[in-house]
């Protein structure tokens, strides 16, 4: 009997903390005489991780297929079919979660929060499209991304956006990326997911405000191709920059450009660049002076941005629920507001002192002071970079798809007479293109 004593004792010790967390058992569970057995509490299992691995495999397969269709087959129709299939699978079948755009935040949280374990699939979703972009350009955007696909599918009458306006509006995407990284790192929130405009359509339910944003983007998307991709998508910013370095990319013509200008208006996203020569006479000096001015101006923009971001720390920090609770509790304690909120009640139920909450909020505000300054500085740098880019003229001899802006949708192929010639003859695409 004695050997059972320590075991019984250890079981009691193990049960003690769990019972103490229950509060009080006011009515001890009865001892039934009718032989009634406690039914078990059901616990339906979480979605199998196998399904997630299948998603990653489908993503890889889709990217490989997209690569072949964009570079080898050069067929808009095939790319469109792949795009719609991806929309159906990743969007409507898998409910649009997880996607590479949102995975930015998981990766950020992994870097800043050592207690967070990133799901393997989230990591794969973040890395795979970027790796493919380093080789073939934005194949993910054009053929695989469900958010891009839903906008591409509704585009009926593309209207050209002036280059300067497009460049300016693109600041929205940089701001979104910076804010998403900031809030995922120190704000305890994933804003990309919270304001994902199309996930509500994939699930056919969701928050009304976000559904309205999504519907307006789709309405705008009837005339302005892929507005989310061009002006808002944070992952698009990363893909843009990596795409500049890609080994291979979409080329409008299969062999040589004859400068027939037939493809000029082919791109609904304004990504086709016309050939340029040297600076027109007299403009070169002006541009040079402007470049010097903007280069001098760049540090000023960065510092101004950092100062602006730093001064927004109070407002930015309010994204964090702890800070909001602390502010509310402070107002209640000092008698500036009447009544309590759910959050302040929940805080009081924990039994912590208000001072410890205020201290926590101060630490978070301090983090936002640094984070806000970094975000502002980053935006200043981007703005300055855009100004500098205005004064740089790249020499082009052919009509080309812009490395950064091209979504690899394949619309321009069919506009090239050389491509049509290739179809007739059934020629292969020459190597090196």
């Amino acid at each position: 009997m004695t050997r059972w004593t320590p075991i019984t004792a250890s079981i009691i010790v193990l049960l003690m903390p769990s019972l103490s967390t229950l509060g009080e058992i006011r009515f001890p569970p009865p001892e039934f005489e009718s032989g009634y057995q406690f039914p078990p509490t059901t616990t339906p299992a979480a979605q199998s991780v196998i399904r997630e691995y299948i998603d990653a495999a489908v993503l890889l397969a889709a990217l490989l297929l997209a690569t072949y269709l964009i570079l080898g087959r050069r067929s808009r129709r095939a790319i469109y079919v792949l795009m719609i299939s991806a929309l159906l699978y990743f969007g409507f079948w898998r409910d649009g979660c997880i996607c590479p755009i949102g995975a930015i935040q998981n990766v950020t949280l992994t870097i800043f929060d050592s207690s967070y374990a990133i799901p393997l699939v989230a990591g794969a979703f973040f890395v795979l499209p970027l790796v493919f972009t380093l080789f073939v350009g934005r194949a993910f955007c054009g053929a695989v991304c469900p958010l891009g696909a839903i906008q591409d599918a509704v585009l009926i009458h593309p209207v050209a956006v002036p280059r300067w306006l497009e460049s300016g509006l693109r600041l929205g995407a940089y701001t979104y990326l910076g804010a998403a990284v900031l809030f995922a790192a120190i704000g305890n929130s994933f804003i990309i997911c919270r304001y994902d405009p199309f996930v509500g359509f994939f699930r056919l339910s969701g928050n009304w405000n976000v559904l309205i944003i999504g519907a307006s983007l789709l309405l705008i998307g009837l005339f302005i191709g892929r507005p989310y991709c061009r002006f808002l998508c944070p992952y698009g910013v990363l893909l843009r920059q990596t795409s500049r370095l890609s080994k291979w990319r979409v080329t409008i013509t299969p062999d040589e450009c004859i400068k027939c200008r037939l493809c000029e208006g082919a791109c609904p996203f304004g990504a086709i660049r016309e050939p340029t020569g040297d600076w027109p006479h007299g403009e070169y000096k002006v541009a040079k002076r402007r470049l010097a001015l903007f280069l001098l101006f760049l540090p000023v923009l960065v510092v101004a941005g950092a100062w602006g971001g730093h001064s927004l720390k109070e407002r930015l920090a309010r994204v964090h629920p702890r800070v909001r609770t602390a502010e509310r509790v402070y107002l209640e304690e000092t008698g500036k507001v009447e009544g309590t909120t759910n959050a302040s009640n929940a805080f009081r139920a924990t039994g912590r002192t208000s001072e410890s909450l205020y201290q926590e909020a101060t630490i978070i505000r301090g983090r936002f002071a640094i984070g806000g300054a970094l975000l502002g500085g980053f935006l200043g740098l981007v703005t300055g970079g855009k100004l500098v880019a205005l004064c740089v003229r790249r020499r082009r001899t052919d009509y080309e798809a812009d490395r950064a802006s091209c979504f690899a949708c394949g619309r321009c192929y069919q506009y090239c007479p050389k491509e049509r010639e290739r179809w007739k003859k059934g020629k292969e695409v020459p190597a090196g293109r």
Partner: protein
Amino acid sequence: MTDNGKNVNRRRFLREGLWGACLGGLGAAAGLTGARNNRDNMVWQIDPNLCIQCGNCATYCVLELSAVKCVQMYALCGYCDLCTGYLVPEPTALDTSAENALCPTGAIKRTFVEDPYYEYTIDETLCNGCGKCVKGCAAFGNGSLFLQVRHDRCKNCNECAIAAACPSGAYKRVPADQPYLLKGVERKA
């Protein structure tokens, strides 16, 4: 033209250097993922000890009918005749009439076991996760009723909309192989 040639080479050198750096960075991201993942997915769950039954679970879920349901831990239940999770305060009679039921959707079934004990079972197809019964049970009973994210319904959003609206910070990411935080059940470390 030699000048031009140099220029192109410099540009190419820069480009290929950056290209390598990008690939290296992505490799680092992949390595970080590999080193810091737990092979399994993370899912959302409510810590019942922090939950204050504010009602947000019923309204903020992206699903039409919330994935959060009330669960009954039978081993903790007192099987009371006067169940404050089932009946409104000061009921006219201790029976199953609708006027006395606290649950707005009629999701709790009351069945007689033996005198004076009644079993209370949740019909999850009706439960909307409002937590009214949980509040009643915690206030005057044993607290055997509590809210949990049910993973047969949960879409496992990257950011849970209810978690973002939870006033008490009761939502946590937990490993998918132990996806519930049940009262009175110790979790493996």
